[in-house]
């Protein structure tokens, strides 16, 4: 095969898992091209790869959970299972699944049977393999397991149905289930990807602790290098169905040999920037050899170079923890400046009709006040339910506040006329999170990008569409194609082009890179940073990921439970978060361990 993996490190004892030449074929072609991997008892191995690299299906093959359409060949041995796992019948393997080897899947929201109580679902694992004598002892064991995965109230959780639990709690339940029979091997397939950062940190701790206590071998699959570096002793990097690099975590991260690993590491490190102050990107060429050196290989030069982090000079520090948060104006504009966006006591209460809490409604926003000055690049950071999306909708005039007021460019959104709203919507553009859902699959790119243009002639519209597509780095032949013909990163470029076509003053980016692969993420971030300079945009960048906003923004608002808890210059906030929640967020954000200090930031512009 094209890539020769470095030899697996010598193992003393018989490995828990021994994979030789595992190939997985689909009708459309080969997805995994013969991988080799050993996992020793108690060893923690990380399997890194981007979407489509074959990392997840490889792990499913170990347990016979591959989809019918896929077929696996090769030799896979698991200690305690007779013969080649790939040749075993479903009933033979089912005796091993959940007993000798367990798996935790990515999506906790759908991994549990919605009609069964948690207790029954966990107990079932033990009753199935007769590791407990009866239901009474199963119940005791369930409560003990729930305590071990640190759910707040094991008694209540045991009696609950899945929909009554949060995502983090559900994932803990799934982990409890997987560890119920003390398996020799635990496979975790992106177990924290769907979770908030702070929850992710907790769940990672739980997995690491439990695995260490029980001396369970761990196969941890993730696209997130920082996450893997925090749990794995040894990593294997997969790309296009090959293991391209393999070794001790420290070695691989500190001195990557393969160019893809190097590029991936560089792109993952959002602290790193090249000489021009831009994020390092992976060359996303489709062939398996990303030959070129990591760096801004695909970006057009930006209009103006800018420092990565620079606190806006007119930022006034907030007055600390003293006053009541609702009375406080965050990120206030200097007194001699008129802010572009001015929000005072902004609240949004959703009527608590269905599934509501005590009929009093759900607070999306609780009396927040803040300013945004023209040209500022403001990051809005918070976890799910923090109110950041509600805020976005109100600023973009997609929703109305239930109390308080907001002015954008001097227009009071609560009282704006239709004409004013139209003008305002040309000034405010939004880039959405999900490149799959933000483009109408039945429209051509030309129609998608020009949709915001109104009252503009055909020829001019076509001209501007071409112009703006060129600005985001897409060719003219994109015009007549449909969204599904583009990759995630390209789709996000189309989305950005649509946002810019009205030449807005304010760009709201709603988690624009959270659905993208690491390698593409840096490119899109660079593009947004460049374009906001080029187009003199005021940027509101919404993200759950502190690492991401850190690069693009010069000031941050941190939100939690519908309130702004802190606002500071980016560098300050990082260095010394004041609010407890910010501190949690900073410390929970996974960082690349072992990584070399990458190229310096562009102070020398």
């Amino acid at each position: 095969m094209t890539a020769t993996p470095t030899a697996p490190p010598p193992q003393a004892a018989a490995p828990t898992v021994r994979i030789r030449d595992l190939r997985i074929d689909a009708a459309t072609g080969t997805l995994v091209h013969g991988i080799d991997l050993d996992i020793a008892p108690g060893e923690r191995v990380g399997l890194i790869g981007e979407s489509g690299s074959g990392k997840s299906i490889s792990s499913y093959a170990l347990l016979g959970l591959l989809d019918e359409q896929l077929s696996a060949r090769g030799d896979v041995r698991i200690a305690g299972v007779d013969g080649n796992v790939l040749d075993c019948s479903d009933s033979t393997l089912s005796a091993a699944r959940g007993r000798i080897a367990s798996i935790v899947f990515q999506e906790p929201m759908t991994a549990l049977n919605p009609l069964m109580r948690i207790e029954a679902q966990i107990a079932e694992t033990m009753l199935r393999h007769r590791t407990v004598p009866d239901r009474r002892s199963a119940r005791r064991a369930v409560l003990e397991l729930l305590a071990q995965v640190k759910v707040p109230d094991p008694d209540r959780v045991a009696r609950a149905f899945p929909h009554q639990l949060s995502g983090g709690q559900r994932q803990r339940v799934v982990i409890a289930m997987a560890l119920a029979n003390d398996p020799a091997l635990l496979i975790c397939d992106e177990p924290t990807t769907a979770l908030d950062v702070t929850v992710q940190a907790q769940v990672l701790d739980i997995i690491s602790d439990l695995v260490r206590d029980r001396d369970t071998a761990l196969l941890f699959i993730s696209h997130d290098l920082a996450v893997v570096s925090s749990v794995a002793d040894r990593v294997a990097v997969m790309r296009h169905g090959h293991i391209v690099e393999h070794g001790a975590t420290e070695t691989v991260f500190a001195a990557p040999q393969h160019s893809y690993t190097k590029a991936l590491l560089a792109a993952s490190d959002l602290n790193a920037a090249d000489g021009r102050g831009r994020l390092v990107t992976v060359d996303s060429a489709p062939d398996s050899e990303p030959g070129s050196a990591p760096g801004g290989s695909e970006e057009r030069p930006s209009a103006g170079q800018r420092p990565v982090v620079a606190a806006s000079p007119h930022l006034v520090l907030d007055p600390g923890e003293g006053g009541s948060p609702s009375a406080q104006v965050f990120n206030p504009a200097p007194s001699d400046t008129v802010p572009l966006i001015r929000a005072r006591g902004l609240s949004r209460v959703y009527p608590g009709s269905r599934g509501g809490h005590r009929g009093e409604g759900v607070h999306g926003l609780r009396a927040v006040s803040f300013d945004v000055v023209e040209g500022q690049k403001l990051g809005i950071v918070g976890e799910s339910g923090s109110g950041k999306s509600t805020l976005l909708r109100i600023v973009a005039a997609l929703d109305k506040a239930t109390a308080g007021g907001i002015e954008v460019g001097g227009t009071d959104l609560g009282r704006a006329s239709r004409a004013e709203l139209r003008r305002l919507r040309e000034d405010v553009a939004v880039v959405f999170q999900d490149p799959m859902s933000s483009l109408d699959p039945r429209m051509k790119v030309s129609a998608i990008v020009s949709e915001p243009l109104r009252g503009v002639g055909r020829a001019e519209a076509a001209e501007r569409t071409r112009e703006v597509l060129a600005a985001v780095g897409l060719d003219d032949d994109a015009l007549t194609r449909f969204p599904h013909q583009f990759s995630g990163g390209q789709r996000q470029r189309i989305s950005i082009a649509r946002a810019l076509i009205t030449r807005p003053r304010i760009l709201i980016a709603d988690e624009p890179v959270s659905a993208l692969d690491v390698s593409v993420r840096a490119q899109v971030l660079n593009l947004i940073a460049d374009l906001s300079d080029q187009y003199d945009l005021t940027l509101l960048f919404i993200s759950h990921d502190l690492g991401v906003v850190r690069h693009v923004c010069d000031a941050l608002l941190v939100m939690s439970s519908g309130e702004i808890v802190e606002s500071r210059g980016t560098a300050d906030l990082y260095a010394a978060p004041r609010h407890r929640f910010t501190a949690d967020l900073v410390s929970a954000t996974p960082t690349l361990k072992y990584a070399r200090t990458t190229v310096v930031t562009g102070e020398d512009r």
Partner: protein
Amino acid sequence: MTGSAPPHARAEERRPAVSSESGATGRRRRSWRGGSGNLVTGGTIVVLVVLLALVSLVWTPYDPIPVNPAGRLLGMTSAHPLGTDLYGRDVVSLLMYGARISLLVGVAAVVIAMVIGVPVGVLAGMRGGWVDQVLMRATDVALAFPALLLTIVFGAVWGAGTTTAVIALGISAAPSFARVSRSGTLQIMSREYVVAARAANRGPFWIATRHVLPNIAGLVIVQSSVAFGIAVLAEAALSYLGFGTTPPTPSWGRMLQEGQSYLFDHPMLVLWPGIAIALTVLGLNLLGDGLRDRLDPRAGGAR
């Protein structure tokens, strides 16, 4: 026909809106061959029936209307490949003419159902709130009137006949179109491209015509083929009961009813129209399944 016109009520809401998205994962892919096979088989049958009906507009082997007592109940002969009925009419000609009626009823009923149901569903889905509540309660009430019941009542009030049957069948199929359109609309409205259109200052009419309708078209087409089959079955049942197409216009259902008394001696008189009905409905259902496999993103990755 069991009269059972399954209005595919709430079950339909579990289906996702048809909006092809890339990235259909391997896990969600169903057999491509199956879907395509259904599509081809169903499509072929439907096209044949349509051709038969079209030809009957200009030519049938014999005039299917006048009775010919001299030549009644002839078996299969070279002059009458499928024989003649109890009035001496040529069965082939009757079947061809009957295809016309069945298709006419089916098309008209589906069009009525679509014209009522789709706007109601889209409106309910887009507006939400009390508009949605009221419209959906209304469809609940409408769904409580089974198709056959409504047709018989309409027949009692305004006189039985093809027109009455078409209107009644159309009205009773409308609620399922409304539900399907509504659930599709809800899915589409949750997509970010709709939010993007709103942020781009596009109004509800633009969103409905540019984003919602094109993206729920697949669902509506699938529902149409299902409703078409139901209407054909219902028309046959009504004609069999004497509440559908009035004599002397030939209709498959009435051919069955007339042949019933000769079941023992001339079973083919029942079988031929029976086969015609079954084949047509089968074709429509296969077509619907094939389209669903084709258009449902969960069922297959193809667009």
